[in-house]
């Protein structure tokens, strides 16, 4: 039997590419506040994301991985989490981080080459960005185990890309989540590309979600550019995890509209027709059309929102750019709770050297 035949993965979608309801919408959509909030958050996140790219292009920030076109996933996921839940994000989660209340300036500071971007109180118990692909899956399993051992009702939510599902870390975490009934929501941002490697040569499995089936987990695919479908899927997954019924794998189908990062040039390996076509499915336009059709949005509100976004970003960028360099001691002070004598000597050396050479760091 072919994998397709014996492993049926449900696929949830409510809105057409043009933002029309494809079938009866869930009752919660009657409350327009939620949808308007999703829209507002995505617009602000996209503007922040574009600013991050612009900062890199003008030499004011380092390499940055844009979330362009994938805003819906991260926005909806983090909107549905409770503050006490634990987010274990990856590098393409700017929209979700903003939703979690993490200042944009923190995120910019991080990509600006400064560890203090992951340090502020706003992060709570959430994890910092994870660079080594898929290793965060293990952290999620550990966080969830801690929650379970302590009889807490929070959940762990972990995100990663389609490429990440090829690593053993991912499979190992799914396996544990299944066998220990862990309260985890696994989010796969399937943007069809892992740098230059397209989805179809990443895995022979018809869906990535079905990797969850082999671990005994609830496993679904969802249109990752459709906030209503995402809301349904993520909400159900969080509820299931919170009530002790185990983990879910959600494969959110989307598309990376930008380069992999600012250091990448996708035109080397990607057809422009494919990109053009993907723009027709992007999440923000789709929701805007829907809201317009329902009379929930208009040009005036749009203009006000754009202004609001610009003002917020302006403020955050200023904060980022005005963040002074850390003290030299900052590079040494956070390795151990207690400073080893040997390291203290090295620290004094570094301080003296910086003073003697009048060295700064890289100015943003």
């Amino acid at each position, binding site marked *: 039997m072919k994998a397709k035949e014996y492993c049926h993965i449900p696929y949830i979608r409510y809105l057409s590419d043009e933002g029309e309801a494809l079938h009866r919408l869930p009752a919660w959509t009657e409350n327009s506040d939620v949808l308007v909030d999703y829209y507002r958050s995505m617009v602000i996140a996209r503007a922040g994301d574009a600013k991050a790219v612009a900062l890199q292009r003008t030499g004011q920030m380092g390499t940055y991985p844009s979330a362009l076109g994938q805003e819906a996933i991260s926005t909806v996921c983090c909107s549905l989490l409770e503050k006490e839940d634990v987010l274990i994000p990856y590098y393409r989660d700017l929209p979700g981080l903003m939703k979690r209340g993490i200042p944009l300036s923190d995120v910019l500071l991080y990509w*600006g080459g*400064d560890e203090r971007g992951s340090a502020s109180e706003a992060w709570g118990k959430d994890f910092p960005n994870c660079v*080594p692909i898929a290793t965060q899956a293990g952290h999620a399993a550990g966080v969830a185990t801690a929650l379970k051992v302590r009889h807490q009702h929070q959940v762990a939510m972990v995100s990663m890309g389609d490429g990440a599902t090829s*690593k*053993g870390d991912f499979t190992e975490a799914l396996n544990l989540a299944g066998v220990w009934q862990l309260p985890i929501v696994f989010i796969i941002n399937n943007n069809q590309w892992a740098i230059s*490697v397209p989805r179809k040569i990443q895995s022979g499995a018809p869906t990535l979600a079905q990797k969850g089936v082999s671990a005994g987990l609830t496993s679904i695919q969802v249109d990752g550019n459709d906030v209503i479908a995402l809301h349904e899927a993520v909400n159900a997954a969080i509820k299931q995890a919170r009530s002790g019924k185990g983990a879910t794998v959600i494969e959110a189908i989307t598309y990376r509209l930008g380069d992999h990062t600012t250091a990448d040039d996708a035109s080397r390996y990607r057809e422009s027709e494919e990109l053009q076509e993907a723009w027709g499915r992007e999440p923000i336009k789709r929701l805007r059309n829907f809201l317009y059709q329902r009379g929930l949005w208009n040009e005036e509100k749009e203009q006000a929102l754009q202004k609001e976004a610009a003002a917020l970003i302006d403020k955050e960028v200023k904060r980022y750019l005005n963040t002074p360099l850390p003290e030299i001691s900052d590079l*040494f002070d956070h390795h151990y709770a207690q400073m080893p004598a040997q*390291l203290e000597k090295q620290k004094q050396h570094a301080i003296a050297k910086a003073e003697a050479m009048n060295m700064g760091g*890289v100015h943003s």
Partner: protein
Amino acid sequence: MNSSVSETVDQSIPKEVSEKLTMVEAVNLALDHAMADDQDVVLLGEDIGVNGGVFRATQGLRDKYGLKRVMDTPLAETLIAGISVGMATQGLKPVAEIQFMGFIFPAMEQLICHAARMRNRTRGRLTCPMVLRAPFGGGIHAPEHHSESTEALLAHIPGLRVVMPSSPVRAYGLLRAAINDPDPVIFLEPKRIYRAVKQDVSYDTAILPLDKCFTLKQGNDVTLISWGAAVKETMEAANTLQEYGASVEVIDVATIKPLDMETILTSVRKTGRCVIIHEACKSFGVGAEISAALAEEALTDLKAPVERVTGYDITMPYYRMEDHYLPKPDDIIKAALKTLSFH
């Protein structure tokens, strides 16, 4: 997989043409020539095909040699090392790329437990003629985990060779030697100097020994020993010291493991003074090994304590402050003057 591309493209080598190439271009040329010379040489890794690798080290090779010999793998470093071991035991010569040295760690189990031991475990029945390439080191304002220098972790493993070029000519000659070598070779490419200088490289460029240091500059007063990108700062320091009137010898270790102590000892016996310069953290590093070997074998020849100029024992700072971590020519000059003035 389909390898039809390879049948339509000319795979012959323009042997006589010598070109001015950067180090990363020299790596590309070495791969190209090795593949042309030996059908068993295959490349594998993440984004090495149509993208030509994130640093373009494999650019053009997929078109030239086809998908069966230039394989884009799924995103999985344990697997990349594992299949390299598997392929190597069957007579292929896999040259795997790990995108950045910071992502070599999932491959470590395969390297330590299998690649490095297969020959010994089977008393030579199965061997691992594989190369694992990875760009490494700081100074290019890269994201977290993209700037470390962890050569000492690898050099600690019996059965592995660890090689590290610092010029286009040495990159070519050492990589060709690494691919020819019957044992697993870790080939670390200092990406900060990937495009720093150009040298003439061609098919006639010498294939270099994997167990010899390179003396880049001869002198009598002090020996500066370095490897990787730090060779650049070391040479700068040597030139300044020369202006101060010191006669400086500079050694590029290049083949970290096995270590050519002969060349180092001969030099230090001559100069009696030695500064070791590396970008990696100080403690438990390759510099410590060299220093210990000097203490064991040349203590009476030393006129001053061995100095080390290295990175600090801290996590490689994210790029805004990485300059504070990296050894500078001034640090090297200071250390050299200190040894020179020791009586």
